[in-house]
């Protein structure tokens, strides 16, 4: 069977991808609160949040991060990723119930490692909402396999 994954050698600095959109629902927030145990009122108390600067409940920042990680896998042919090694991330604005987010990504660096069979690919990511406002942005370092014999 042919391996359709993209290896360190195949990925080029400057490549850009854009994912499909995904609407964040109340259900996503409730499930994430249950999974993570983060029941902060920002995400769970609709009445309290009416009088907040947001006017309503907002999604957990890390829920947005998790959703963009999934969207990224739908934005491009999968990398031969061995591990997620580092993240540098900023939360720029709220994600509200009903917002549709997508991720735009660009490969900014490639670094070989001491082990010859893998390298680190740095991907800059911007999470946008339906109004093209940046809600989250950051960089991720992925450890990606090299093609055997490359």
């Amino acid at each position, binding site marked *: 069977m042919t391996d359709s994954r993209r290896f360190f050698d195949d990925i080029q600095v400057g490549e850009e991808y854009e994912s499909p959109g995904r609407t964040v629902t109340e259900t996503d927030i409730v499930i994430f609160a249950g999974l993570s145990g983060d029941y902060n009122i*920002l995400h769970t108390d609709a009445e309290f949040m009416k009088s907040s600067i947001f006017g309503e409940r907002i999604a957990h920042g*890390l829920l947005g991060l998790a959703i963009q990680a999934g969207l990224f896998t739908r934005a491009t042919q999968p990398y031969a990723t061995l591990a997620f090694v580092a993240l540098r991330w900023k939360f720029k604005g709220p994600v509200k119930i009903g917002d549709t987010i997508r991720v735009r990504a660009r490969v900014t660096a490639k670094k070989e490692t001491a082990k010859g069979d893998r390298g680190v690919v740095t991907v800059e990511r911007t999470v946008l909402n339906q109004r093209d406002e940046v809600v989250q942005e950051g960089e991720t370092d992925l450890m990606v396999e090299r093609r055997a014999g490359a």
Partner: protein
Amino acid sequence: MSQPSKFYFEDVVLHGVLETPAMTITEAHVALYAGLSRDDPRETGAVPEILPLCLTTGLGWRVPQPPLAVLAFMGFEWNVVLPVRVGDTIFSRSRTATKRSMREGGVIIEEREVINQRGEIVHKGKFTFLVAKRPA
């Protein structure tokens, strides 16, 4: 009715350390996380790297002090040191590294480590929060 107590900027002790209770990461956590995010595990038994990070936020609520009056989670840096597998039991330890007063609230930078049942640091990083000051 009195409001539940909160931990304000003034209450945060510089270099103060907090340890959370531990929890075992199960197949159910991974399935729920993957179903929600579509950030799938790379192989059976592997835990997607973002999941322990998400679990530490909930563990952070289970410490013997009132919740921090967070106005905004501004950002973080995170490094994955070792893989986490289904069945591992993790807890987190955090330390206030920086406290900077601003006109509206203050910025707290917290160093956080995730530690497994063998005492190994598996993930670590720094979190930046904007925290409310005690109402006058």
